[in-house]
């Protein structure tokens, strides 16, 4: 059965994405046949015998050309190759049309792979004892996979069990229903034995979720004193050949448009968006989703404006940034920045990089002929957004809550089932810390269980920086309910009034008397005669949680980089990278730092190395780690991180999500640093990744135009 994907909007063109291609193949890597054999080697031998015959249609590759009138439509009946055209408009851009400064620039973020180190994989078999389909898969959201696979396979959901045992990274790329998933399950239903498909790296780089490909055409309207008045722009999102379930590619365009004003006090916005279909692998979410592109565009444009006006880029940001006294501040993109001190974070970073020292060093010049550049960028990260935000996005699935079941066992240890999925975020640790705080026991006595639809309550999975807000909230809420019951039983065992007891240090206390949780757990589970009248046996609580205002809470930060770049070879080295960030209350600072550093490493990959190019015929050109450049240990600098803590008003314990933020700013920061390095010749850096070739070409072009 086909599942519709993409937003529930009449203007969005819904297409069928078959598990195996029908009469038309739309991208290299689209599955056309499946070969099953006892071993992978034998199956690959079989696949080598499959002959594919077809007529060749013209390939649609260039993002902007794709929607030109004479281009071959990818789908019959489409007037042009766009899934959707839409305009985001607030304020009145026409009112600033005669602004004293009008700056027009184009920026591009090229396509890349998500590339978790573990590729995708799925094993499916029919369990004849339980009469259910058991699916082991590498996914970020087992409950949603059950929901979608049951529908596509025509099975009732209680006959489908999805297990995600230990997922080797996802970053957004394992959060969509893919054709191979459906094909493997369908084969398992007919063949009577387990069927396995493990994606290899070549398949991953060619046909797994790809990301980031955006083109920005933007105009800033400003006063001569640096105040930015409005942004008018056009955003092209290259969605590839199909829309992936559930939410399809439109979210990229709307998020790009709404994040384009960044954290700036800008009053007029008009952005036309085009979500374009091309003969490439489908675009999907990747850490940061659309915001790395939007941040690249606005932060590069701010630097360009600063240079145009001969204002220091930091000063230009001082003039325009949202201030602490403005909070909560609704941006012209409609996002409500809730708490924080953005200018404070910027001043902190300015101190961390020693601007006068860098300027002096630039004056002196380098013995090796390299140029030194300093760049800044500010980002925001919407997190913990729920029903209001996802219904605004017309999402087919509204991830508006998470659930947790907290179960205390007879010895006082605790198992917590969560619908969320950990695949590297450290949620077993942070969720246990939250429960430990409520129950006043050691986190080591708490086990978090996730990743099995038969063992955990409903949840949406880990994406969109949502886990600590939603799942952390659900764990806190269910644990607090359990703590109430523990207090009630403890008061009874102590023969003290409920109002006089406190739960602390793993025991219920009434004055000098106390009863340990283990004793209460024994009573609650296996000695019901010890319970007070009216208290039911069992120590298990399930709660769902969603923040009271579900528009999201915003983490933010300011990044700065100092780079050294060789003008001839174009090779860039990052000498220093400084961050001041604020993600509200930190449950576990070590994990927060780990997420920041890992995110920045991926952002540096986007900025300098990673690219999935296609030739004019639609052939993907980066199909191995030989030609797809992943950043390794020598490429990633040691980061200097400073934390601000502005708790959210709106979440349990004031937490904000922060898993994506690190990946948002690096392309903008590094491009601004390169621009700074070549200010004297005005070399232009407007496209990622800034490979040695692109950098040396930009320098050569700038020198040429000076001649």
């Amino acid at each position, binding site marked *: 059965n086909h599942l519709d994907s993409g937003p529930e909007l009449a203007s969005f063109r819904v297409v069928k994405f078959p598990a195996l291609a029908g009469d038309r193949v739309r991208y290299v890597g689209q599955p056309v046949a499946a070969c099953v054999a006892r071993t992978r080697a034998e199956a690959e031998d079989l696949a080598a015998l499959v002959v594919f015959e077809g007529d060749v249609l013209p390939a649609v590759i260039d993002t902007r050309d794709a929607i030109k009138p004479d281009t071959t439509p990818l789908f019959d009946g489409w007037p042009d190759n766009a899934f959707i055209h839409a305009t985001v408009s607030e304020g009145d851009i026409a009112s600033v049309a005669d602004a004293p400064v009008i700056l027009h620039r184009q920026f591009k973020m090229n396509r890349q792979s998500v590339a978790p180190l573990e590729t995708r994989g799925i094993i499916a078999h029919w369990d004849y004892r339980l009469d259910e389909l058991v699916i082991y898969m590498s996914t970020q959201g087992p409950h949603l996979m059950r929901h979608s696979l049951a529908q596509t396979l025509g099975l009732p959901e209680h006959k489908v069990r999805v297990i995600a045992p230990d997922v080797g990274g996802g970053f957004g790329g394992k959060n969509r229903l893919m054709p191979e998933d459906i094909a493997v399950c369908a084969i398992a239903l007919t063949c009577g034995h387990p069927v396995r498909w493990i994606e290899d790296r070549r398949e991953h780089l060619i046909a797994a979720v790809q990301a980031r490909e955006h083109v920005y055409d933007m105009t800033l309207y400003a006063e001569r004193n640096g105040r930015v008045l409005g942004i008018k722009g056009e955003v092209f999102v290259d969605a590839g050949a199909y829309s992936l379930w559930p939410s399809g590619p439109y979210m990229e365009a709307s998020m790009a448009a709404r994040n384009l004003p960044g954290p700036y006090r800008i009053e007029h916005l008009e952005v036309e968006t085009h979500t374009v279909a091309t003969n490439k692998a489908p675009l999907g979410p990747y850490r940061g989703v659309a915001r790395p592109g939007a941040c690249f565009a606005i932060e590069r444009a701010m630097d360009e404006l600063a240079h145009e006006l001969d204002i220091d880029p930091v000063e230009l940001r001082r003039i325009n940034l949202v201030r602490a006294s403005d909070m909560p501040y609704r941006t012209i993109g409609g996002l409500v920045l809730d708490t924080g001190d953005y200018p404070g974070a910027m001043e902190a970073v300015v101190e961390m990089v020693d601007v006068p020292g860098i300027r002096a060093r630039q004056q002196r010049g380098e013995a090796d002929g390299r140029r030194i550049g300093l760049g800044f960028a500010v980002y925001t990260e919407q997190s913990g957004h729920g029903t209001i935000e996802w219904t605004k996005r017309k999402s087919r699935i509204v991830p508006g809550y998470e659930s947790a079941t907290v179960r205390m066992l007879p010895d006082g240890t605790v198992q917590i089932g969560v619908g969320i999925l950990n695949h590297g975020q450290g949620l077993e640790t942070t969720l246990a810390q939250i429960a430990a705080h409520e129950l006043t026991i050691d986190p080591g006595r708490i086990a978090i269980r996730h990743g099995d639809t038969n063992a955990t309550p409903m949840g949406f999975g880990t994406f969109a920086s949502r886990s600590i807000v939603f799942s952390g909230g659900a764990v806190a809420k269910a644990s607090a309910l359990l703590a109430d019951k523990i207090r009630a039983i403890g008061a009874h065992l102590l023969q003290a009034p409920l109002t006089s007891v406190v739960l602390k240090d793993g025991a219920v206390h009434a004055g000098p008397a106390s009863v340990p949780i283990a004793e209460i757990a024994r009573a609650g589970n296996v000695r019901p005669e010890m319970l007070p009248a009216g208290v039911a046996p069992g120590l298990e609580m399930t709660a769902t949680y969603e923040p009271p205002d579900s528009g999201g809470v915003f983490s933010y930060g300011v990044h700065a980089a100092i780079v050294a770049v060789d003008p001839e070879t174009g090779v860039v080295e990052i000498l220093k990278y400084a961050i001041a960030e604020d993600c509200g209350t930190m449950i576990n600072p070590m994990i927060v730092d780990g997420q920041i550093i890992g995110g920045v490493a991926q952002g540096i990959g986007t900025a300098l190395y990673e690219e999935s190019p296609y030739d004019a015929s639609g052939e993907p050109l980066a199909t191995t*780690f030989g030609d797809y450049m992943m950043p390794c*240990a020598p490429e990633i600098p040691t980061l200097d991180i400073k934390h601000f803590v502005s708790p959210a008003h709106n979440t349990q314990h004031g937490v904000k999500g922060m898993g994506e933020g690190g990946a948002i700013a690096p392309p903008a920061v590094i491009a601004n640093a390169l621009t700074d390095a070549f200010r004297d010749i005005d070399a232009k850096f407007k496209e990622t990744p800034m490979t040695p070739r692109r950098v040396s070409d930009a320098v050569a072009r700038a020198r040429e135009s000076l001649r």
Partner: protein
Amino acid sequence: MTTVNLTLNGEAISQQVHARDSLADVLREGLNLTGTHVGCEQGACGACTVTLDGMAVRSCIVLAVMCEGRTVETIEGTRHTEPMDIIRRHFHEKHALQCGFCTPGMLMMARDIIARHPDPDEATIRSQLSGQICRCTGYAGIIAAIGSAAREIRETN
């Protein structure tokens, strides 16, 4: 099929393999030693690192038939051994892993680096680690863990 005789994790074994089988596939599929992870099959990511006659190699680009008469150690063979237990503890303490997929290869390579560079500075660790890809951590914790593990190993010896 060919019979290969080798010493695997301290035990002499004979295993039937195809001429085209990689060592990684034989370890994982034939011998159920799934601690060796396969991330690229091109020798580029290092997740499948094992030792062959004591030298760190990428098992995805070693043919199993080449292991005749040789000694292979996988991550499973390092359980409860020194200095790997020390290195493993430092990986834990320094938050040197997130999803954990690269970790077996990282540990095997970390032990190899420390054996060759008992007192490595950060630049040495970074360059020696340049054949191992981690997608999650940004390498910071891994580099710190190798440095601090090397120090402890040096001081206890």
